[in-house]
């Protein structure tokens, strides 16, 4: 009883402390989201007042081939880069968790690429992917001559551009590796000792001890990766301008073009709301599925 009274009396003081966030939330987040919902029901070119058109933008969206293309490209890129990124970073974390001489050195090296600012990574990889002079085709040239094929043009070839960008994204997984490593260090050693006494091999230990114990970390990384990949914009904007032939034209790129290149703010807002619902749905699916495969200790 007394506690509730204190907590009620503390309301003004609590709100005072969190007031910066409340104000920022109202003006820079809640208001834009509501405006976005309203604009999505309007014809609005930023110069004249918005004109209410009902569900017109959403109706148009269903028949818009570019919308479906951008969505397909984004999902394809996500389907390649998310599993590749999560898998490679987990493998790297397990490797870097082995007790060897020079372990801190190896960890630092693997982490370094994730520090590279996006624009520098974009420029660097454009050069690495260069068909004639790039390092990648040069390194693979013995393989090409063995198979009697020509090296691909990577990001300059429609069928190759999305796999190329996914490959490049794997280079920057250092952040995720660090999060996995923190998870691996928290797995109690007794569990491995017990498994060893029971005669479990290394692979069995991985499957029955390591993976279940770090499943919350895998889950966290999965959710973060999904939220990030739905928004991918910088890299294709810098490296391919969505090309060639719109083969790397992603969802956020189309949203950006509608808002700021074509000044179709109404349509851009409809795209924005679909994107928001997509993120919510994907995280929702992740949370729902997590009940089946994520193991929380002490629960």
């Amino acid at each position: 009883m007394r506690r509730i009274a204190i907590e009620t009396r503390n309301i003004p003081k609590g709100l005072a402390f969190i007031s910066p966030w409340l104000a920022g939330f109202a003006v820079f987040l809640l208001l834009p989201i509501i405006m976005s919902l309203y604009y999505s029901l309007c014809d609005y070119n930023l110069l004249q007042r918005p004109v209410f058109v009902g569900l017109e933008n959403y109706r148009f969206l269903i028949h818009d081939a570019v919308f479906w293309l951008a969505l397909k490209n984004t999902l394809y890129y996500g389907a390649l880069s998310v599993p590749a990124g999560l898998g490679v970073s987990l493998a790297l974390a397990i490797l870097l968790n082995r007790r060897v001489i020079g372990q801190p050195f190896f960890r630092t090296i693997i982490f370094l690429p994730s520090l590279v600012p996006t624009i520098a990574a974009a420029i660097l990889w454009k050069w690495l992917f260069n068909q004639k002079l790039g390092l990648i085709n040069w390194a693979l040239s013995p393989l090409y001559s063995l198979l009697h094929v020509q090296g691909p043009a990577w990001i300059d070839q429609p069928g190759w551009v999305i796999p190329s960008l996914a490959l490049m994204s794997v280079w920057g997984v250092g952040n995720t590796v660090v999060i996995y490593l923190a998870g691996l260090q928290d797995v109690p050693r007794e569990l491995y000792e017990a498994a060893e006494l029971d005669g479990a091999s290394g692979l069995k230990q991985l499957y029955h001890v390591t993976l279940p114990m770090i499943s919350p970390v895998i889950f966290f990384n999965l959710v973060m990766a999904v939220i990030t990949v739905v928004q991918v914009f910088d890299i294709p904007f810098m490296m391919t301008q969505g090309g060639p032939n719109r083969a790397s034209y992603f969802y956020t790129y189309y949203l950006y073009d509608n808002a700021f290149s074509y000044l179709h703010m109404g349509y851009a807002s409809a795209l924005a709301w679909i994107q928001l619902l997509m993120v919510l749905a994907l995280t929702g699916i992740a949370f729902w599925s997590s009940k089946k495969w994520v193991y929380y200790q002490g629960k």
Partner: protein
Amino acid sequence: MSGKRTNFWALIATYAALIVVCSLAVIPFLWMVSTSLKPDREVMAYPPRWLPRHIETNRHGIPTNYALAISSDHTNFRLWTRNTLIVAALSVLGTTLSSALVAYGFARIRFRGRGLLFGLVLSTMMIPFPVIMGPLFVIFIWLGRHTPFDWMGTFKPLWVPQWFGSAFNIFLLRQFFVTIPEELSEAARIDGCTELGIFWRVMLPLSRPALSVVALFTFLWAWRDFMGPLVYLQYPSQYTLSLGLQTFQSQNGATPWNQLMAASVLVILPVLVLFFMAQKTFIEGIATTGMKG
């Protein structure tokens, strides 16, 4: 994993794997530095050589490619760096202070509705920036017309929102604040300290490690941010490093790969220096973000 029974061949395999993956991680860097030092004709040579035959320098002894990357018809590295640092400094200061204040409210003041509001803070992390960037543009124009301050054409759209706390930083700092013993605040309270005084004189000095994580990550974010500057900066004189280099690399004509690599080296270098100065802060910071799912 298994300390004593690791046999010789497993150890060899581990080292081999480590050397392979570390090479793959590091070779692009070496290639970047190598290209950045080559004169034009060597850049175009095939098969490529790892070491430049000869490095051209200007009369100050600076490699020509670097001099051109810093200042030429298409580049203005000093201006871009200055602009980036202004945005970064104001963002770091703003988000660290405001997030700490809000985090203190969530960590130390028991008030009704606290749990619900904190849940709301966390859930905002899911909202994609592209969803709000258009309406924010409209809001910034409106603010420019209806307040005494200009917004568009200034850096305000990039740093002012940082002064209202960011969900991720609030979360990170709250997690740290709850680990600080309540007795310390209680002692200060008995000495007549106000709540704000406890926050400022007791909490903040004890939270240096967490505050530096927030400051460091915010700086890195500002250093690499691209979409914000792309949408809200209007004049080339305002360009940040990301935006300036983007215009440089997307210009028409033959691509000056050596100058572009020099520019990339220059953008990466400060981040690497920062990393090696504060390695521990980095790693612990990233590790804690993944700890509480």
